[in-house]
């Protein structure tokens, strides 16, 4: 029932009739509520804060007591502004007020929220005299309503016991925040939101003490925080640092026997004569494309392969731990000098029969270590033999691989190295710290710095993935590349964590020297004479001064030269961080074939050896065969080509005439298997395919369709220049196709287009021996470090920030003094830290993070003063203290004034419900919400302002996350039953009110509370269905209701 009452209807009626009208209704509590609704159709109604009935306040106090006893002391209400006589709070003193007061007095059903307003005669009580006074004022005249009066807003100036909970039509002084709202605000900003226990803790020690604790995280003991420590421990592995010395390298030449027949019984003995066995480079196998010696006939024919190799040890006493490192598919047994030393756990038989199969699948991909130190006694000085039998899981298996190596491993003393497996593990680590650490401010700031100095772990991974070792084999697979990238990012993050409240200069310097940053912003490509500006721009624009503050484009160009030569290198762990430590790999090269004469060549105006059997001529590789008759070809020398002036044989007619030139050369090789690492060294323009004895052995990336000879009129599908550098191709896998004696190297070289201005081919063959003491790019025991390449640095003078107070003049430095060259950049960093634009930019960012998207100028000035007051400048702890104790931080207008970013949303949600997560699945949710830490492409970091995080897609994915989280899907769990019983809540009202208090500091309105209770107490069609633990679906219904409470717009604010 909605009663439409228009106050004008009653004007002129006498008092007695009015009473009759009221009493004539059967007035129930419900009808009074409806009455209230009818009246509040007033167009001015509904603005401002809705009144809160005392009953609900009481309810809250009771529930709040369970949460934190002292938090819910009654709100001070003495200074509420109101208009006297307006008992029904509709902004007008009229007949309805008298009716409302009478209903309150005599029927007892109207709820007065502002007793001061109802006290029309200001006699300190609400009684019959008040409606009479109001009626007198309205209809008889001469009655004066005491201050503040009927049309002015003001407080009650009389000292009386009456209360006014709220009065929405008058401007109010912002209410003094309660302790709970203050604590909520503090934990929303310096922590990832409140937890029940954190609220208790702050209540206990006080806000000021809590801030001081958080500013000094080292005073917070986390050694007992098992919630944090066990989860962190689950996210990484620990490895004792070690140095490996290769005794028998992977990818080397072995004798092998195909298991079509059993080998002689002494095949694994040192004295066995294996000269009749085949030779081939490991890995040996088929399928998966990961084998160098491919056993084309193995599938469906035989299940085992026997391999053996002799190796020399000068002094067995130099062997430390003995490790068999082996990549295999599917099983193996290994023998040292005739005695079994280890085997995979999926093969049986001693020894397994030649036709045995593995008990299970095992996929190759990364070598696994088997520690066989206890069999070291089998080694002898001089010649030793390692022999292995590898077995497939079945005859029809799609792949087989065996690739062993032997290592002497020296375990170093010291702390174990913490290693994360992949990028997701470090993303999970950040969540775990954010959710479970008690050093919340430190973690919030670490995440802030990580974002400020953002690097893209995926770009680092791609960089590592493309590296070669000095033997021209890939330095590492993609798994190792991701693992190394993740650990480089983790190392960076740990520094940001350890120094989160330290000095800004330390952070900036660390970031500049961090291998991830050097790779991410292309400083590894910043060379003298060919500067790459990427890092120079961003250190000014994003890391220190801020965009367009106090520098110009010329400064960026100068800064780029300052940073030339700053690069990365993999070094021994003890050299990490030393830019001048020795770097690289030592090897000795023997030239097998140099540039020069002896070549035959054929101009590709047509196919040299077409197959004309079909309708169209098809290219073949017959021209590359050893027995091809090249006597009609022209004689020439390498390099060959035109343009660029790098050619000994110039093809002056090639441009606009033909795409391809074909080359052949005979090479004498006494013993192919004597090579250590046979490398094809190539400089080329624009593409090539190389053959030995007619078999394709190398191809540039610019030529498509590997394995098919390109036709004579094929163009390279990209430009490639000679000065892009030398490319190496390891040919060990093709030693088997070489003959002792004469072999033929053949190359077809293609241009990118007919009109191209140049073409080149400069081939060499070298044999490379890698020397001891080298740290290869792929060495798992090395560490990536800043490295200064003196030859790549520009030692000339530089001037930055010309004419500004912080102008920097760098004089010409002496070439050959790397320390001085390097110092140019550290001097620049010092200037950046000390200069005013940096103070303003970093202080502004911190204020934006912790106070408001709009930076209050007064607070900015205070922070800058604090920044400048320390030596060195930029003490973050002091700046943070200034912010957290400022008026601006504690101004009520800044409470819940910021929008949570996805990291804050997820962490605060798990914390609020005290949920359990190992963090592993959270990165996917983050990504859906549009944020992926450690892998952002752009260098500017994730945005801080709220406008960037409000979108339909964002809201949807936040809701999906809370739906999954509350429903216990995926790998996190929220133990709903425990949560309910711990907090002694069960009914819809109890649950809603409890979460209103714990999530929202009791700021939800009655209309919102009603909607939530309706949701919990109805079925899917909104038909009534009570919520009771007796029901089988009680828990899922509670979970959906809690999910809804975390889907509210309010939950996006902090």
């Amino acid at each position, binding site marked *: 029932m909605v009663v439409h009452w228009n106050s004008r209807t009653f004007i002129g009626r006498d008092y007695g009739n009015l009473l009759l009208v009221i009493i004539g209704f059967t007035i129930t509590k419900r009808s009074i509520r409806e009455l209230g609704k009818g009246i509040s159709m007033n167009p001015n109604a509904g603005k401002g804060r809705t009144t809160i009935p005392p009953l609900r306040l009481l309810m809250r106090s009771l529930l709040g007591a369970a949460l934190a006893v002292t938090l819910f002391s009654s709100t001070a209400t003495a200074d509420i502004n109101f208009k006297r006589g307006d008992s029904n709070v509709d902004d007008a003193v009229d007949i309805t007020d008298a009716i409302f007061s009478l209903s309150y007095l005599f029927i007892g059903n109207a709820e007065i929220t502002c007793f001061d307003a109802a006290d029309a005669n200001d006699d300190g009580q609400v009684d019959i005299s008040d409606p009479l006074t109001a009626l007198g004022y309205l209809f008889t005249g001469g009655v004066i309503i005491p201050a503040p009066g009927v049309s002015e807003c003001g407080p009650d100036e009389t000292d009386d016991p009456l209360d006014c909970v709220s009065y929405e039509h008058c401007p109010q002084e912002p209410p003094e925040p309660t302790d709970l709202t203050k604590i909520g605000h503090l934990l929303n900003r310096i922590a990832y939101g409140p937890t029940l226990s954190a609220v208790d803790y702050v209540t206990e020690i006080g806000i000021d003490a809590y801030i001081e604790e958080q500013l000094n995280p080292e005073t917070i003991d986390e050694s007992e925080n098992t919630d944090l420590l066990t989860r962190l421990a689950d996210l990484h592995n620990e490895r004792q640092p070690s140095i490996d010395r290769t005794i028998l390298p992977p990818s080397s030449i072995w004798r092998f026997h195909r298991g079509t027949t059993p080998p002689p019984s002494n095949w694994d003995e040192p004295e066995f004569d294996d000269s009749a066995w085949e030779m081939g480079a490991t890995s040996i196998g088929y399928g998966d494309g990961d084998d160098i010696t491919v056993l084309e006939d193995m599938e469906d024919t035989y299940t085992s392969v026997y391999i053996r190799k002799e190796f020399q040890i000068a002094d067995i006493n130099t062997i430390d731990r003995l490790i068999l490192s082996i990549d295999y598919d599917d099983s193996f047994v290994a023998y040292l000098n005739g005695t079994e030393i280890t085997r995979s756990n999926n093969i049986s038989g001693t020894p397994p029969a030649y036709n045995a199969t593995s008990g299970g699948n095992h996929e190759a991909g990364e070598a696994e270590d088997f520690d066989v130190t206890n069999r070291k006694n089998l080694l002898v000085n001089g010649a030793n033999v390692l022999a292995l039998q590898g077995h497939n899981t079945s005859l029809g298996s799609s792949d087989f691989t065996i690739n062993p190596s032997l290592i002497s491993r020296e375990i170093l003393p010291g702390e174990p190295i913490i290693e994360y497996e992949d990028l997701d593990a470090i993303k999970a680590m950040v969540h775990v710290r954010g959710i479970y650490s008690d050093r919340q401010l430190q973690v919030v700031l670490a995440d802030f710095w990580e974002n400020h100095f953002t690097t893209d772990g995926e770009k680092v991974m791609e960089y590592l993935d493309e590296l070669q070792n000095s033997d021209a084999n890939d330095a590492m697979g993609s798994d190792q590349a991701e693992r190394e990238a993740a650990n480089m990012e983790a190392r960076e993050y740990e520094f940001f964590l350890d120094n989160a409240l330290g000095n800004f200069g330390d952070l900036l310097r660390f970031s500049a020297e961090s291998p991830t940053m050097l790779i991410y912003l292309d400083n590894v490509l910043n060379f003298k004479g060919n500067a790459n500006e990427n890092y120079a*721009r961003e250190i000014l624009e994003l890391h220190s001064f801020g965009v367009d503050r106090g520098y110009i484009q010329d400064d960026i160009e100068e800064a780029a030269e300052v940073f030339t030569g700053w690069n990365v290198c993999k070094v021994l762990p003890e050299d990490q961080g030393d830019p001048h430590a020795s770097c690289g790999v030592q090897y000795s090269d023997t030239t097998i074939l140099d540039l020069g004469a002896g070549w035959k060549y054929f101009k590709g105006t047509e196919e040299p050896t077409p197959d004309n059997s079909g309708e169209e001529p098809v290219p073949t590789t017959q021209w590359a065969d050893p027995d091809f008759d090249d006597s009609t070809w022209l004689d020439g020398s390498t390099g060959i080509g035109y343009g660029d002036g790098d050619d000994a044989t110039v093809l002056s007619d090639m441009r606009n005439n033909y795409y391809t030139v074909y080359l052949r050369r005979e090479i004498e090789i006494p013993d192919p298997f004597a090579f250590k690492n046979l490398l094809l060294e190539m400089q080329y323009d624009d593409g090539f395919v190389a053959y030995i004895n007619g078999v394709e052995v190398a191809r540039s990336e610019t030529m498509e369709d590997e394995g098919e000879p390109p036709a004579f009129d094929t163009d390279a599908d990209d430009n490639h220049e000679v000065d892009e550098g030398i490319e190496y191709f390891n040919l060990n896998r093709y030693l088997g196709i070489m003959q002792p004696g004469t072999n033929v190297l053949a190359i077809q070289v293609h241009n990118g287009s007919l009109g191209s201005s140049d073409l080149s081919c400069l081939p060499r063959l070298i044999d490379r021996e890698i020397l001891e003491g080298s740290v290869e790019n792929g060495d798992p025991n090395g560490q990536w470090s800043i490295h200064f390449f003196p030859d790549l640095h520009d030692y000339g003078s530089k001037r930055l920030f010309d004419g500004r107070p912080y102008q920097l003049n760098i004089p010409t430095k002496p070439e050959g003094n790397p320390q001085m060259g390097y110092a140019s950049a550290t001097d620049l960093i010092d200037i950046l830290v000390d200069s005013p634009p940096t103070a303003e930019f970093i202080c502004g960012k911190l204020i934006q993070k912790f106070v408001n998207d709009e930076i209050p100028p007064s607070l900015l000035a205070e922070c800058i003063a604090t920044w400048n007051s320390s030596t060195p400048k930029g003490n973050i702890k002091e700046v943070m203290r200034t912010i957290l104790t400022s008026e601006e931080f504690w101004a009520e207008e800044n409470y819940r004034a910021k929008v949570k970013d996805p990291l804050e949303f997820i962490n605060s949600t798990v914390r609020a419900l005290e949920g359990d997560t190992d963090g592993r699945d959270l990165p996917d949710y983050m990504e859906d919400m549009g944020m992926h830490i450690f892998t952002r492409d752009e260098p500017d970091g994730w945005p801080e302002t709220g406008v960037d995080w409000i979108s339909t897609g964002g809201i949807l994915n936040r809701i999906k996350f809370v739906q999954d989280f509350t429903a216990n899907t995926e790998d996190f769990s929220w133990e709903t039953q425990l949560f309910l019983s711990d907090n002694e809540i069960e009914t819809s009202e109890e649950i809603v009110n409890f979460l209103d208090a714990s999530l*929202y500091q009791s700021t939800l309105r009655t209309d919102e509370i009603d909607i939530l209770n309706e949701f919990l107490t109805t079925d899917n069609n909104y038909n009534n269905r009570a919520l009771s633990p007796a029901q089988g679906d009680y828990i899922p219904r509670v979970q959906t209701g809690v999910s809804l409470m975390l889907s509210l717009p309010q939950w996006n604010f902090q």
Partner: protein
Amino acid sequence: MTIKRRSFLQTAGGLTALSLGLNAWAPPVFKRRLLAGPAGGPKRLLFIFQRGGMDGINAVIPRGDAEYNTDNRPTLYVSEGEVENTPYGSLDLGNNFAQLHPRMYRMIDVFRAGHMAVVHRVGYRGQSRSHFDSQQYYENGTRDRNLEVGIFNRLIQESSTFQENSLPAIALSSSLPVAFRGLAPVPNFSNAPDFKLRGTDSQVAKYLGRKRDEGITGRGLLGIYTGEADDATKPYRGQMYRTGVALADAMKVIKDEGIDPETYVPHPDALYPSGSFGDKLKQAAQIFKSTDVQILGINKGGWDTHTNQGRAHNGLLYDMGRAFQAMATDLQDMWDDTLVISMTEFGRTSKENGSFGTDHAEATVMFIAGGNVNGGVYNCDETTWSDGDIFSTSNGRYLAHRTDFRSILTEIFEDHFGDNASVLDKVIPDRAALAAADPLGFTKLGLIKQA
């Protein structure tokens, strides 16, 4: 009571007013045919933002500039083509000056049909070479960093073209691009089938509940999102609440229309790029065909080519060429009412750097395609480009702009959407002052055929 969009947004000048206006927001009516534009259907615009800064000199080669040579671009230099409609050598654009990068060959037919304007030397005065700043600038249309409203959001609010449209725009992107941010909430998603809540249809229906309206109490999520904002005077309230409502509305349309790149069957001759870019383009075509959504935005990243640009551009430009071909083919029935445009925050250094890439610079290329476009090459011919102009900025290092990007957008707003000067003044603030300071930059090119 039905409040039209227009009046809603007018009352919604500030955040406070917005959050209060919500209770009165009527449920939108979808699938209503809009008033036909001059050519029949509603006017459509798909924009592709190439994030990172596309090297316009590589995409559209100024062959007539002698400084375009192997000295300045040792590895990036593209030699002249000789085989038509194949990816071999640059493609003639018909004016003996400009040539298209060979890997964009898939769209050459769109150009040769006269349906594509290739506008070179697009930029603005005082070009920022920061990604962040320049993207903001392009997407806001103004340098005012405090104006947190994207140019297409302002257009939707101000232009009469969109007043009757309850779902005028969608961003096919997991985060909402700046160009779409603002008071009018624009839905965004990257994969339509994921654009829904968990649960069965009836569970979702209950969760969403219903909006508050006169005489109707709200229920569930919508009941709260259509209520008065908590702390209404604090930042972002109105935007958050309205966005939640827009989410629910848009999810309904996407579900009802079955938008799904997996099941969508495009025109058989459309050569969509592979991967997520192609999937987004397919969704764009499907949305244009089945709804009245008028503006769609797609991001295409990867253009920050400081290193090995040649190889990167091979893939990127190939995708762009296919994108234009696919849209022209798949949307041929509405092609006269459709524009597909590309934009990027800046061009790149005219000289190649030491890493076979290019660094941040100034002017670059925009492509504008549609059935009603005055096709051709703009700002890259003998009359507009002097020898050596690839180094025409005052520091002698970069390509200087001739046309301001906002002048091009003005033509689109005027001649495609039919907006008048008063609307344009609101959508592009300081229009007159900008034009006065840069008369050439704001000279109308005549990109769209007049009705």
